[in-house]
């Protein structure tokens, strides 16, 4: 089986400051990889390097493209990379404002990616958008409302619908449940789990919430000071952590 994403020795520096260093891993179709670490550990830098938002200083990010098989997204042309990020990739931002057009209706937000890849039939675009709004539990009668009129949880679900409408194969998530009420978090987690299973999506989830990765991620990568210090099955890393920092991290979680 070809990995969907093969990351090799990715490093990123901000001047002299280290973002992340020598990160390598493989992600297979249908897998959800969690990346945990505290603020400044380099997990967001890594995610942005993988998703093409930042250019790594060294390393390869090889994606198994539909048309041409494995290709290094770092060295591919910008139009090609941007095309990927509109079609096969999705990026769910922590703050829905970063991932939505707040002045465009919910339907328009979902429809944008369709129009970006050439859809020109209003009726079809709209029915697909409504279909996806339904999948993320947003009622059809909210289709023409702007996201600024939505609650935080609804905005996040809208962002997910907007991202998934073109049937991506890899979804990047940056703290997808951060900033949401716990009750809303639970619903979102269940939604994401269902979508990942039903659509066979692969996902990379960056978070500092260990409870979130336990429920969402198959595998876990722990980062500290720009380095990956531990990887493994999520439950194994959380229940039998090998690295001192991971042990500290796991033992610091408050029990409810």
């Amino acid at each position, binding site marked *: 089986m070809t990995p969907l994403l093969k990351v090799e020795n990715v490093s990123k520096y901000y001047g002299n400051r280290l973002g992340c260093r020598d990160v390598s891993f493989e992600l297979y179709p249908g897998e959800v990889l969690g990346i945990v670490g505290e603020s400044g550990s380099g997990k967001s830098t890594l995610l942005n390097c993988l998703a093409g938002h930042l250019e790594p200083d060294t390393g390869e990010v090889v994606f198994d493209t539909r048309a041409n098989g494995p290709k290094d997204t770092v060295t591919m042309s910008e139009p090609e990379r941007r095309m990927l990020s*509109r079609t096969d990739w999705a990026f769910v931002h922590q703050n829905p404002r970063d991932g939505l057009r707040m002045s465009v*209706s919910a339907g*328009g937000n979902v429809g*944008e990616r*369709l*129009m*970006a890849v050439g859809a020109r*039939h209003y*009726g079809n675009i709209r029915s697909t958008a409504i279909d996806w709004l339904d999948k993320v539990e947003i009622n059809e009668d909210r289709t023409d409302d702007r996201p600024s009129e939505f609650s935080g949880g609804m905005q996040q679900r809208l962002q997910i619908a907007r991202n998934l409408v073109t049937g991506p194969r890899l979804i990047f998530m940056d703290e997808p449940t951060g900033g949401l009420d716990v009750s809303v978090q639970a619903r979102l987690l269940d939604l994401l789990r269902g979508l990942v299973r039903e659509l066979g999506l692969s996902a990379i989830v960056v978070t500092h919430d260990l409870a979130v990765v336990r429920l969402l991620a198959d595998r876990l990568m722990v980062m500290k000071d720009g380095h990956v210090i531990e990887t493994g099955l999520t439950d194994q890393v959380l229940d039998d952590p090998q690295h001192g920092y991971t042990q500290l991290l796991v033992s610091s979680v408050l029990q409810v």
Partner: protein
Amino acid sequence: MNTEYNFAYLDEQTKRMIRRALLKGVAIPGYQVPFASREMPMPYGWGTGGVQVTAACLVPDDILKVIDQGADDTTNAVSIRKFFEKTGGVKVTEETAKATVIQTRHRIPEAALTEGQILVYQVPIPEPLRFLEPSEVETRKMHALEEYGLMHVKLYEDIARHGHIATSYAYPVKIEGRYVMDPSPIPKFDNPKMEMAALQLFGAGREQRIYALPPYTQVVSLDFEDYPFEKGGAQQACGLCAAEDAYLDEVIMDDAGTRMFVCSDTDYCRVRREAGHIGEMGVPLAEDAA
């Protein structure tokens, strides 16, 4: 002509700079060429971009016509005409057919333009993607990579909200299947006229952009398969000249709200009335003058 000014106000170096931008614009139809817009002796929003383009195009033999919303007799049109009479000594006219250079704000003349004529548009905001994507860096990249999905989002929003494409002016067009362009705030009624024999030049003074359409360039108004572009237009004939194919202005006649619709293109209306066409509320031309 006042000889204390260089011909047509701008110095020759500036004109050369603008001409280079114009040539580049002609070579890449619909592409926005940055240029070093000068301070002009009029405020932004009064046609500083158009005036600079006109100044760079004018030669002493030219005959200039200036219209504002189709009319030759509004303050803006009169002022710009006088400006070039004073600084360039060029001949001016109100007759579309006689003019070699026509500067316009918000309209295209009704009468078809011919080869050899130049139509100069005043443009307030040249970037059609601006209202959806505020970042200039991003919009330039979108043009470069032909990422125009966002333009359709605007039209989608129109249909979702109003049931039809409600954008009625500055209606976005695609040039020769490549660049999406803002046609300046002309009514969409004028969009089909843009595939014309004359050279069309666009100047945005405040935004420092020039773009152009060479004669007979393909100009397609964006739309959806199930909501095709419609140019729209008046439901009735001009009250003065009875024209049924012209873009009309609504005029309120009295405090009771009596209205009449007249051609926005004043020269077109005059020519028709001279030829003997009389609208419902019109009178023969001779009596009107008396």
